[in-house]
């Protein structure tokens, strides 16, 4: 046998080379899009947040962190932030708890399971803008059936979207209406993953009542799913925009101004680019924080 002289390195190996060439060929177009549509805009928006640039203006200057300090002193921004948190604080528990209850009840149905699933999922697929118009009409104080029903039942007059105390709750009801089916599906997936044996074991151990079964098996086994549902719902609720844009436009008295709607008004109606950019960065920071929590939650889930 001859001694080995040539030592082919990995890079000279035909298959490795072909794979690397193909890898770059297939990934580069997507990478370019990532740079153009994601990375560059984020850098630009950050730089703009440090300027007093106005759309169409010819000269602009650096203002450092001025936009940020203005933002945190701005009543409108703080109010919209507060409103958003109130909205999230209603929608998240509402849609998660109802999603869970409905999922558990639907899971136990046999013949009617499919029809309930269809009904509850319906709002998830429909165009929220169109349905917002319908909701607006439904809750219209003079024409809407809900208010006339309330009137007939002796609850008196109320104008959900005109009442500063009710408007966020009204929007949140629509938010829950839209999200509950989505959460139901996620919970159903979690429920199907619970082994039947556990319920049988609980039965034999004496935990056979509905509440015992829920407290001893369902709820602990759904823990990871629940955390996950809470996080995704939080992200969705935090991005509320459509209902506000169609129904209230921030009214009455700014009580339904939410973060993205304010951002839209400042950036794309008033074209105050610098302040809008600063708000965008604040929004991004929040989203990234939630994403970190989410990563942590998913991590927990895999270790379960």
């Amino acid at each position, binding site marked *: 046998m*001859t001694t*080995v002289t*040539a030592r*082919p*390195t*990995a890079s*000279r*190996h*035909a298959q*490795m080379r072909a794979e690397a060439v193909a890898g770059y060929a297939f990934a580069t177009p997507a990478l370019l899009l990532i740079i153009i549509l994601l990375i560059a805009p984020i850098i630009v928006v950050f730089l703009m947040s440090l300027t007093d640039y106005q759309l169409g203006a010819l000269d602009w200057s650096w203002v450092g962190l001025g936009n940020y300090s203005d933002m945190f002193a701005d009543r409108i921004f703080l109010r919209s932030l507060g409103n958003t948190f109130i909205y999230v604080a209603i929608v998240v528990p509402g849609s998660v708890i109802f999603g869970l209850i409905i999922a558990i009840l639907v899971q136990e149905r046999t013949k009617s399971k499919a029809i309930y699933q269809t009904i509850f999922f319906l709002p998830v697929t429909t165009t929220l803008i169109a349905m917002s118009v319908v909701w607006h009409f439904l809750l219209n104080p003079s024409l809407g059936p809900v208010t006339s029903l309330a009137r007939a039942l002796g609850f008196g007059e109320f104008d959900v979207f005109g009442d500063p105390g009710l408007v966020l709750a009204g929007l949140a009801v629509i938010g829950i209406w839209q999200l509950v089916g989505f959460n139901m599906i996620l919970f159903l997936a979690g429920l199907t993953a619970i082994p039947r044996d556990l319920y049988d074991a609980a039965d034999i151990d004496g935990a056979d009542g509905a509440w015992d079964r829920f407290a001893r098996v369902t709820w602990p086994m759904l823990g990871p799913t629940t955390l996950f549902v809470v996080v995704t719902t939080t992200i969705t609720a935090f991005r509320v925009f459509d209902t506000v844009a169609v129904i209230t436009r921030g009214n009455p008295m700014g009580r339904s101004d939410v973060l993205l709607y304010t951002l839209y008004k400042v950036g794309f109606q008033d074209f105050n680019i610098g302040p809008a950019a600063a708000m965008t960065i604040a929004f991004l920071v929040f989203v990234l924080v939630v994403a970190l929590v989410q990563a942590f939650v998913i991590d927990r889930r895999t270790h379960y």
Partner: protein
Amino acid sequence: MSNLELSGISKTFGATRVLNDVSLSVREGEFLTLVGASGCGKSTVLRVIAGLEPQDAGTVQIGGRRVDHLRPKQRNVAMVFQSYALYPHMSVAENMAMPLVMQRLNLAERLPLLGRLMPRRGRLMTEIAAEVDTVARQLQIETLLARKPAQLSGGQRQRVALGRSMVRHPDVFLMDEPLSNLDAKLRVHMRTELTELHRRLGVTFIYVTHDQVEAMTMSDRVALMDEGRIVQLGTPAELYHNPSDLRVARFIGSPQINILSGTTAGEGVAVADAMLQIPVTVPRGHVVSVGLRAEALSLDAVVGRAKITAKLGHVENLGAEVFLHFVLPDTGAPLVLRATLDAYEAHRGKLDRPVAITVDTSRALVFDVEGHRVDGPARVAMRAMASA
């Protein structure tokens, strides 16, 4: 001339050394099996030969030609995968035709729709279909050609995978545990079929398995691998009767070889209450392992042969023969003895007490603490001749 030659192949994955200086020379038309426990590197050897994975060092030659710089498709090897790797969305006929389509049609002719307009395509496809049909007949799957892989049984998929590798008439067939997904009965049957197929085609087979029975029954030669190295390369008989290493002795053979601890003494090795007259190259007073195959032990008393006293535990009755599981009284070490049913019946009466088991010293194997053979070189050579 050798058909396939590996020299000094080494490979690491991260910190793990998967292959460590593997050299192997395979003769034209040989059926060579790489056998070993999972993770020993045997499948990696196949992938390196096929060019699917690069080696860190060493060279591969096929038909006397260096192939390290060639892409997998240029090496003219065919591979049968453990999962069969059939294209799930293509019919059996399309699966089998694929290597030929890729070989004979140019890029334009392979285009999904436009390809049909190319002038040569129709004729080539007819030729390919005819060849696929011939191979399908050889494998008796011609009635399955229109089906999708999901509609086939395990054995049928196995044949389709074989067919796909046969159509291209490769220089070397590489088979990566092709029978491990089949049920026990079909596996035995396919062993015969593969051996028959190899005889008929006369092409080199490199076969990877973790099943020593497959290795023993099918191969011309077997390479036993452990921790990325070839421990021993030889005919099945050599590996069985004349293992160079304790790992080989343990891996090959069913029931597993009996290993008893012994001590070298003046005239041989002391094992339990017996003294085996075996010349060893280890100085006296050292601990060694003595390997005794089940058939090297007997219940019949033979004058002049060493005897070990043991107590019968349980009996495994296989019909024509029985495995008697003994236990040594002092150490509790197990000892399996292979006997014919008649011999067992003849001795049955005395087996409720400890009995003397006769040892055929000429078939005993002695290993040092590192697992190397240490019974005299003359004996090793003699046994090699006997098993050849």
